[in-house]
């Protein structure tokens, strides 16, 4: 039987393997060395690779992301640890004006092979500045690839691919999933970017979920299965590049879809995916593609409020039920 490891261990293994394989890979961020990050994801790496390749930085997010860009442009392959996804705002210039555009602006001469690993996800009672899921922001910027692992298995394979990619890649891990276990082979494997994963086959409706929302979609599919509704669940794995073909094929088959993502709904990831499906599978749709993002509110601290802001399996199932029954969700 295949061993099971946590998402945290999976990320750790991926990085360790790539650091062994390629001496130009190094890691930097706040408290990544002895402390191994607050989530302990990187524990043990400094013992193996030393403080030259696992570098504790001051609390200077724009600064050390800038350093990573420069190191990447000149022959290293840095992995940057950004402790919370919410700090991505601080590094947007270095990420979006510098890293993302170098290759294009230089007519293909400069490359920036770097990985920014960070996280997303609410319901940890961490309040508005430590709970955001900001993947839509970076997905909008040409030149950046964006990966959203949904399990330990995915996290390892996507991280290894990211480290070998010659472009800036942003990986959002779900904070709440670090201790979740999944079967992960001992042997090396990579997961290619831009290839969606059909996690569950189905015929009546397509549920497309990113990261944390894959589990939500799978739970919803269970609920629906008990009622005789067959849901197909797809994990795009990377939102840039996006495997449009797999999503379209599924929706053309099922004629109905819900897109679920933990970022704010408005101007978020669900809008892009839904509008592509609507545009390109229009004549196959029996109902509008539905979007379920997080509420358009800063994440509240109070548990009584926070849990209301993120889509749940029950809500997904309820919407799927309506779509399949031909009920209108919006007065139209």
């Amino acid at each position, binding site marked *: 039987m295949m061993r099971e490891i946590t998402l945290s261990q999976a990320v750790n293994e991926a990085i360790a393997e790539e650091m062994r394989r390629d001496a130009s890979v190094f890691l930097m961020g706040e408290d990544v060395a002895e402390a191994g990050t607050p989530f302990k994801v990187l524990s043990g790496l400094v013992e193996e690779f030393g403080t030259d390749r696992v570098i*504790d930085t*001051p609390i200077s997010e724009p600064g050390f992301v800038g350093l990573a860009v420069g190191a990447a442009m000149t022959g290293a392959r840095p992995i940057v640890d950004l402790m919370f996804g919410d700090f991505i705002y601080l590094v947007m210039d270095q990420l979006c004006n510098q890293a993302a555009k170098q290759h294009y602006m230089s007519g293909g001469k400069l490359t920036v092979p770097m990985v920014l690993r960070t996280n997303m996800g609410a319901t940890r*009672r961490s*309040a508005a500045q*430590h709970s955001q899921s900001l993947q839509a922001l970076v997905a909008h910027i040409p030149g950046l690839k964006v990966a959203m692992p949904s399990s330990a298995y995915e996290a390892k394979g996507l991280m290894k691919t990211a480290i070998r990619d010659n472009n800036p890649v942003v990986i959002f891990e779900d904070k709440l999933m670090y201790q979740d276990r999944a079967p992960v082979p001992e042997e090396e494997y990579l997961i290619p970017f831009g290839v969606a994963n059909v996690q569950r086959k189905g015929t009546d409706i397509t549920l497309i979920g990113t990261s944390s929302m894959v589990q939500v979609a799978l739970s919803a599919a269970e609920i629906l299965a008990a009622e005789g509704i067959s849901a197909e669940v797809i994990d795009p794995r990377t939102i840039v590049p996006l495997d449009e073909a797999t999503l379209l094929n599924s929706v053309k088959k099922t004629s109905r879809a819900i897109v679920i993502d933990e970022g704010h709904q408005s101007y978020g990831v669900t809008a892009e995916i839904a509008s592509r499906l609507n545009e390109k599978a229009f004549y196959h749709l029996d109902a509008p593609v539905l979007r379920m993002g997080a509420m*358009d*509110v800063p994440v509240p601290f109070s548990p009584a*409020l926070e849990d*209301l802001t993120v889509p749940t399996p029950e809500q997904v199932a309820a919407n799927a039920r309506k779509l399949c029954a031909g009920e209108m969700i919006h007065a139209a």
Partner: protein
Amino acid sequence: MAKAKTNTEDYLRMYRQMVRIRTFEDNANQLYLSAKMPGLTHMYSGEEAVAVGICEALTDDDRITSTHRGHGHCVAKGAEFKAMFCELLGKAEGYCRGKGGSMHIADQSHGNLGANAIVGGSMGIATGSALRAKLQGADDVTVCFFGDGATAQGLMYEVMNMAALWSLPVIYACENNGYSEYTKTEEIAAGSITARAEAFGIEAHQIDGQDVLAVNDLTRKLVARARRGEGPFFMELMTYRYHGHHVGDINREYYRSKAEEKEWKENRDPIIRFRAHLVSEGIATEDELDAMNAEVERDAAEAVAYAEAAPYPDASEVDQHVFAA
């Protein structure tokens, strides 16, 4: 409040405020350990003389900005236990209706513009408050609290430059507790912290942050000068946090020794020191101070009980306050 703290009443209030902070934190820590508090929190214990020494030199019109380690600033600036504990528990009667929590607690009525979960994130806000004061001809002063770790944020240099260019009434109060998270200050800060402020032409002082009278005395002088347009100023206050970086940081020997912790707690504790001073100067007796401590403890226990029983905000509040009317 801003008059010289030379009389009994002022001294006793400073003592009381330090005890209130310590007691608040002990209760907050208990709430965490007994799994009654959602999320994490960062304890201010050990640093009381900084918040109290500074805030006792301010009026309610003066503003402060606070940090992730913000309970001490909040108490020192005049907040009540009940609304604070309610906030920590996410209850509707909290200072922010439970929406902010420990890391965003604010107390508008006493001039506390709020804790901030972005390290260094409030440096602009504090300096902007001072700019507003100058533009509107108000004589209030703003104190910006932040840690040694926050000196690594570029924002600090941007706002110090503007504060210096425009002589703004802001005081930068760097609480140097020797660590940012699990890393020693000397590993993340090159050169000298006070010299960084001085390079912008800002008068900077390094001071013992465990001596509440020294802190208060210096602050009163700087506040008075800032009111006269002689700001900005910079203070580096040498202090120590007794707990872990946050309440969950229990095993910390890999980054700092028990001996070091013991030394600070036993020989440099701001409350013990000030208490000894009060007794030796005849300002209060041990008994009087014990009674004060007991009263504060009762207050805190009552406030905790109140907060535990208090209702959560109604679900309908979830999308209220996104936009102001």
